[in-house]
């Protein structure tokens, strides 16, 4: 399966944020999306998730049996600020999510098993989500995206402001989830991108470009990324 973006463009007033983007993402890989502040990473995600209307462009999923347009249920979107319905308990949210997605969840497990998997302690499972910590909310958000098994998982800086333990747990969770789907992970932290991602993609001047790893070691790659992102300043 491949996720294909064709001719995606988006502008705000006179500023062209995304310029006729054409890009193909491959299944089974985690793509690290890097870009300067204001480069348009969140805009790109919002366009894919249809939260904002793009000026033009189409999204396809391509498999061996042909291509089809992207549908809402193909996408899982984890935001940097976790959003969970505050008036439900963790368990209720999970039950509600599983009720609604009953037909599409393959091999459903019990709520307890799901909670165990993301290490949410038994005493926290029946607390209101509004009283969850930032990290726990983040885990819940990841969990429902995990259960839904979307073809495309968009992650907008999801590990920022998590403590080291939760961040490591989330990283291993993401690695375990990457098979069978396209994962696009936007971040500002280069170490994280290099550590977790299979491919590094830069969003620069409104265009997406892959950073070829060729034979570079981590330091060489780092320099190459910095050079590419800094170029912008000199133009």
């Amino acid at each position, binding site marked *: 399966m491949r996720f294909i973006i064709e001719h995606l463009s988006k502008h705000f007033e006179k500023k062209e944020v995304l310029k006729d983007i054409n890009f193909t993402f491959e299944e089974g890989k985690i793509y690290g999306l890097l870009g300067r502040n204001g480069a348009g990473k969140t805009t790109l995600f919002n366009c894919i998730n249809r939260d904002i209307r793009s000026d033009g462009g189409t999204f396809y999923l391509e498999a061996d049996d042909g291509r089809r347009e992207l549908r809402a249920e193909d996408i899982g979107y984890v935001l940097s600020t976790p959003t969970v*319905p505050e008036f439900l308990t963790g368990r209720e949210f999970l039950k509600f999510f599983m009720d*609604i997605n009953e037909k599409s969840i393959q091999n459903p497990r019990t709520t307890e098993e799901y909670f165990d998997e993301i290490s949410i302690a038994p005493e926290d499972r029946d607390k209101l989500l509004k009283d969850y910590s930032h990290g726990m909310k983040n885990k819940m958000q990841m969990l429902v995206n995990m259960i839904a098994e*979307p073809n495309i998982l968009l992650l907008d800086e999801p590990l920022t402001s998590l403590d080291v333990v939760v961040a490591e747990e989330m990283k291993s969770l993401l690695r375990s989830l990457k098979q069978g789907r396209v994962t696009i992970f936007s971040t500002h932290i280069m170490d994280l991108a290099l550590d977790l991602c299979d491919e590094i993609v830069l969003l620069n001047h409104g265009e997406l470009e892959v950073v070829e790893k060729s034979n570079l070691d981590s330091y060489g790659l780092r320099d190459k990324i910095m050079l590419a992102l800094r170029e912008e300043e000199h133009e």
Partner: protein
Amino acid sequence: MSKTLILSFSLKNTYRVNSILYSLKQIPILKRILPDTLYQERGLKIFANVLSVLWEIISVFIGKLLYLLLMVFGAGKLYDRLPDMQVFLHILLFLTLIGGFANTKMFDPSKDKYYAMILMRMDAREYTLVNYAYAILKVVVGFLPLTILFGSLSGLPLWLCFALPFSIAGCKIAIAAASLWDYDRRGGVYNENKLNRYIWIGFGVLLGAAYGLPALEMTVPVKLCVCLMLSFIPMGAAGSYKIFSFQNYREINQELLVQQTNQMDTAAQITKAGVEKKISADTSISSNRKGFEYLNELFIKRHRRILWSATEKIACVCAACIFGAMLILYLYPEMKHEAGKQVKNCLPYFTFIMYMINRGTGFTQALFMNCDHSLLTYSFYKEPKCILKLFQIRLREIMKINAVPGLIIGVGLALILYVSGGAYGWMDYGVLVVSILCMSLFFSVHYLTIYYLLQPYNAGTEIKSGMYKVIMSVTYFCCFYMTWLRIPMMAFGSMMIVFCVVYSVIACVLVYRLAPKTFKIRS
């Protein structure tokens, strides 16, 4: 000192100019015409600067004009059995005392103070003194022509009219100085926006004295009033010494503004936190339903305080009012004729009452803040069939919630009409009950439809739709306008029933057609 004055002025002015430009950008049609670079546009900046300076000048007088005109002079005219001068001075004395505490000009945690002293690190003592002196000058200059005008109209001697602005300023200075002295002694900073219970009780007593005593034809004697008002002048002069010699302005402002710093970027988050607090922490709440019905039932149960409890309270108050009205009619049968006439002509008035008591805005606000704000980021939640299913469920719930007081008011009015013997036939009763219920239906549908079609909030829970604000205001004004109408019950009731039903049908059709596209978080 003069540099501080100029700096603080220019800071305040910049802040005000940018606020004006920002407000312009919020007006629905204008925002499309104005460029994103409006903060750089010279012409627009000059325009906003002119407005800002004009406002600075007008603000010296406008509030004081309204205050003296409505609260002192105008209110005084209502007590026609007492001499004008006596009432004028009596009310002014008590209100000046309240103003001394409520509008200190020093202990108000405002944004410009935060910018100047905390962000820009200006010298707190100098900044406070310069701005305080300017504020007091505005009090004197602003009040002077007005006390001369209204004082003379009330028969006060001219010398007293001249002295009154200084008395008002003196009262403020004396109270501010006393608060500083209290800070030195006990350490607590007085915050005029966070008054404690005792001060509120004090205000209540002073207000009661200001307006209640004249109603009983009692006032503080003129001579005593004059003496007290004049005594504020030397007290103010003494207070000035304390204000000038006080050294810890940095400390008190730090303490005053510490809460403000939290508010700076997060006005919307405070609203959100407020709405979040309304979620019931009762752990026994549960639901046996499934899917969206499950979500809805838990939402309704956990928001009982702002939905069902509120509507039950309103219903009880309505029932009590109706019972009271029936009791009056029983005790004073001669009023029946008039009561019947009122009920038959006052139906439009009840549009406003139904507007006031409907739970629509509270419901949609809680829906967004505590539920849709988060769930709308999940793709399954945005699927058209889910949006419509949930709309159906929510409409049913809010209709039930609003129908309870509607039914009580409708039946209650019909009872009053029956007791007063004013109905022409059973149709009258029917129209009365049904039209009130239709009004409750209308408000239920109206708020939920507007919410689904305009979804005004962004991810930061700020209202971003100018159209939403316009519709909310138009709704208010239309309902308010109804209070002026006197239309026979049958005519108005039938029109209302037809209007509400047609509106509801159209609204639901629109939601079914458009909501899948419009119901999303604003960017």
